[in-house]
């Protein structure tokens, strides 16, 4: 049994502008101890997915349908009390921006200790000791004296470590990391990721790593799901995704990975922006930005298929899946890109795609 199994999850936000389908019919699974990456630009529905797992979607958002099986139990069926027992305890979350995730008016120590007290029934002293130990574990020097520091007295990196300590405080089985390093500079990013990985290994914790950065995914994850406009467009084990991306969007994302030694000021990004989620374009929602888009792409919505077999792969068991009409055979011209593997100190792959500038910029 998988640790987490998400089936046909749909989350909608009822805004004044209209109904936003933030997550559309999403299915995936995470095994115990596995590191699962969720990749996509902002607005792709990654964070909403993570919050859904905690049942922290707030009005005007609503989980419309689907099920979230955690250790075989549907989180969506749980009472408010039951889900609170899961939150922070079995599933914990590391937020993107530690500075905003920490309450400025309470000490860092207290914010960690309160979860410990709550879930593990520790008394004040025990909770304090455990917190100091956790702070020490995540690499905060002089943990004991920093316990009673306020968030603003911590540097950005330390704040992030504190947030990690908070998430680890009750030995969760699943760690939801929402862009855990975006707010940090590169050296600290590397340190933190390393820390995270080793801690997860140490505690045998599964990780769902949400990021827009394929490089980070490559470093940490076992399997990856690429999301676009609320839907998965490609799922694959991490190597396969890198060496053999099957979806034009994945290709686009990969060409925006910064490389060591890259002197360009700005990264090459996929032209265009995410579509308005209230009114998705007809057919494939990526077609307005897709360099390979054809007439048929504007008409038919591509299903998730196994790119090798062309069979349905929308279930959670599918190891390899992509949502492109190429794999239904409906694309006339086909996809035309190549993946070039460079020798380097890591396994980063690099894909280049023709950049049809001008007409959509």
């Amino acid at each position, binding site marked *: 049994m998988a640790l987490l199994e998400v089936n046909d999850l749909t989350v909608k936000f009822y805004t004044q502008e209209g109904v936003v389908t933030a997550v559309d019919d999403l299915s995936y699974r995470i095994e115990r101890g596995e590191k699962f990456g969720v990749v996509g630009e902002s607005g792709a529905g990654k964070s909403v997915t993570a919050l859904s797992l905690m049942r922290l979607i707030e009005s005007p958002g609503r989980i419309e349908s689907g099920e979230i099986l955690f250790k075989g139990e549907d989180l969506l069926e749980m009472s408010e009390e039951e889900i609170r027992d*899961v939150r922070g305890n079995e599933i*914990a979350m590391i937020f993107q921006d530690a500075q*905003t995730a*920490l309450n400025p008016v*309470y000490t860092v120590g207290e914010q960690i200790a309160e979860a410990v007290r709550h879930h593990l029934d520790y008394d004040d002293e025990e909770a304090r000791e455990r917190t100091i130990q956790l702070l020490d574990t995540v690499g905060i020097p002089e943990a004991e004296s920093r316990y009673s520091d306020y968030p603003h007295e911590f540097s950005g990196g330390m704040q992030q470590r504190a947030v990690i300590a908070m998430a680890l405080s009750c030995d969760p089985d699943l760690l939801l990391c929402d862009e855990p390093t975006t707010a940090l500079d590169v050296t600290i990013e590397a340190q933190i990721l390393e820390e995270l990985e080793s801690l997860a290994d140490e505690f045998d914790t599964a990780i769902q790593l949400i990021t827009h950065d394929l490089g980070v995914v490559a470093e940490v994850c076992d399997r990856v799901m690429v999301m676009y406009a609320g839907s998965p467009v490609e799922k694959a084990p991490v190597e396969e995704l890198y060496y053999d991306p099957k979806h034009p969007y994945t290709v686009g994302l990969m060409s925006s990975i910064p490389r060591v030694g890259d002197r360009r000021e700005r990264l090459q990004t996929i032209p265009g922006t995410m579509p308005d989620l209230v009114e998705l374009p007809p057919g494939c929602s990526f077609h307005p930005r897709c360099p390979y888009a054809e007439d048929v792409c504007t008409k038919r919505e591509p299903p998730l298929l196994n790119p090798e077999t062309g069979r349905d792969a929308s279930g959670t068991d599918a190891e390899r899946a992509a949502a492109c009409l190429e794999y239904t055979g409906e694309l006339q011209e086909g996809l035309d890109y190549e993946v070039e593997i460079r020798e380097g100190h890591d396994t980063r792959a690099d894909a280049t795609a023709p950049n049809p500038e001008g007409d959509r910029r």
Partner: protein
Amino acid sequence: MSLRRFILKRLLSIVPILFGVSVITFALVHLTPGDPISQMAATNPHMTAADEAQMRARYGLDGPIWEQYLTWMGNVLTGDFGEVVSSGQDVSSVIIARLPETIALGLFGWLFGLLIAIPTGIYAAIKKDQLADTVSRFVALSGISIPNFWLGLMLILIGALWLEIWTVLPPSRLPLYHPQMLFYLILPGITIGTAAAASIMRVMRTSMAEELNKEYVTAARAKGLPERQVVLKHVLRNSLISVVTLAATLTASIVAGSVVVEVVFNWPGLGREFIDAINQREINLIMAITLFTGVFIVLANLLADILYAVLDPRIRYE
């Protein structure tokens, strides 16, 4: 240590403020025609201009305004606030007799305001845009719009004349610290506190709603904390910061409100005394009450500043 220095500095800054207040008040009172002597003369056909001049000299109300001010200032610095011309009482004894009444009323009104406003503000913020929120916002808007003398009269009408729970007049034989006085503070307290409650509630709601959207709230919820703890521990303290500012500024309007409320509820406070003092141009009394009010408001703001530091550790005073 730094907080102590800060308080000291702020207390010292009261001095120029009070000086300014005293100059302006003194000038304003003197720029408006009339003094206690002309009051006597206005209704007394026996009083000739010579009689008036004679009396004015006797009560030290003659001479140029700056000279009068300096005399007054000199006396105040030695702790002598002068006397009320029409009654011959010492101004300081009037203040000592009346100030506790007003403070009790103001404090009660203020507490009432906070006790009503903060919970409803929290509730409204949690139920934002739902019926309860709309209702409470409507009530708050009414609370701000209702003139407090009218509210006071209505409360007397209902509470004393219809329901006969209270009496129209407060039990004047009881000392202010008698427990039963608390009961009689309720109606004037409501009257004086309603407008304050309404504005505090609105600010509470807004700031709470704003705080509720912050990520640390989601983070707290993600820790599995009960919603009560999330709201009352994490959100409340943050939202209180803006309420503290408002509550401090409201001190001034509560002082102002007490003027009307004391008349309607026959409360023997300083506010009622102030109206009489103005009507009768009792300059010494006007000056003293203004100064005390000034001190009071400055102290309230100082308290607010100290509360900031308590509520928000990011704030440190240099």
